[in-house]
């Protein structure tokens, strides 16, 4: 995956773009992710990946790389984002899981 393989039209890209800019949408991300994903028209594949914070899969589906660590921060918190933070550990777990 790469910025070169981003699918600009992927509904999940629009969802993440807007969630980061809107506190009310972040509340929905936390409390009603299913409804939010439905409203943005995510495919079943996108929904399954986002539910599990499967950023590797989201990247394969065309989510912009820049959003991927932000997905982990949406699930685990954005503050004090050092390499052992919950968000960074989730990133490592999901992104590097199949690395030999």
């Amino acid at each position, binding site marked *: 995956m790469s910025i070169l393989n981003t699918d600009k039209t992927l509904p999940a890209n629009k969802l993440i773009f807007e969630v980061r800019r809107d*506190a009310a949408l972040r509340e929905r991300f936390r409390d009603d992710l299913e409804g939010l994903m439905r409203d943005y028209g995510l495919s079943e594949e996108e929904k399954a990946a986002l539910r599990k914070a499967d950023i590797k899969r989201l990247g394969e589906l065309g989510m912009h*790389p820049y959003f991927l660590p932000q997905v982990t921060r949406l699930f685990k*918190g954005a503050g004090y984002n050092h390499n052992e933070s919950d968000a960074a550990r989730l990133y490592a777990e999901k992104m590097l899981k199949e690395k030999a």
Partner: protein
Amino acid sequence: MAEIVSVLAVAHAPGATGWLDKAPKHEQDALLAGYAAMGEKLRAARPDVIVGVANDHLLNFPMESIPDWCVGTADRWRGPAEWFRDWVNIPTYEVAGQRELARHIVRESAKRGFNLAFSDKLEFDDNWSVPLKFFTPEYNVPLVPIHMNCVVPPLPQPERCYEFGRMLAEVVRAWPSQARVAIMGTGGLSHDPGGPRYFAVDEKFDRWFLELLGTGDPKKVVREATIEKMIAAGDGGTVELLAWIVALGAAGGRAATTDFYVPSVPLRCGMGGVSWPL
């Protein structure tokens, strides 16, 4: 006519303010000393306004419509954007804009073949928040932010970025004002947000790039510092060095001096900065 009194480029990665304590002491010291020295040099040039160029980070421009460059035309700015505040660990701040200069840049660039977007509403993340925290912690120097597309292809090629920087300097100098203007690119060096090397830094690339900027040979820079090489050194992050190429153009292609370089895995970024003698 306005005068350009300083041209510099510097990293803006959020770890520098967000979790610097997680870096080893020698990295912290070198980074803080580097930013301090650059800030001192910048303030000594007594700029009345800073024209900044940095990655928009997909914060303001939606996928539907992404300009190469967008000039911030507001009188007043506020940062960091709410969701990024905890991340960069910087309290809410306000900084003045310079609307007349911003409008001048948009108008005059159009006559020179650059179709710049402009906006009174731009949200800031680490792109300005981190450098301003170090360089102008009292937020007392107005900022004209130019947000650029560094991460959603097609990107402006290095040659175009260089030409944009040259044109920007020309337009700034043509502003009918006695203002002293600094031009500051922010971003880079190697980092890989969203990629497999999120927890790595490409020190070899960074040192090569800094050396290349030191040659004073802009043709060689735009020929060799390709987007492909930047992507290979960290997809989605390193490409922010395009903003440095804009600064290089604004400096007329002169040789840059490296002010500091700290490859930091705990900060997940090659941290560094350069300035150009004028």
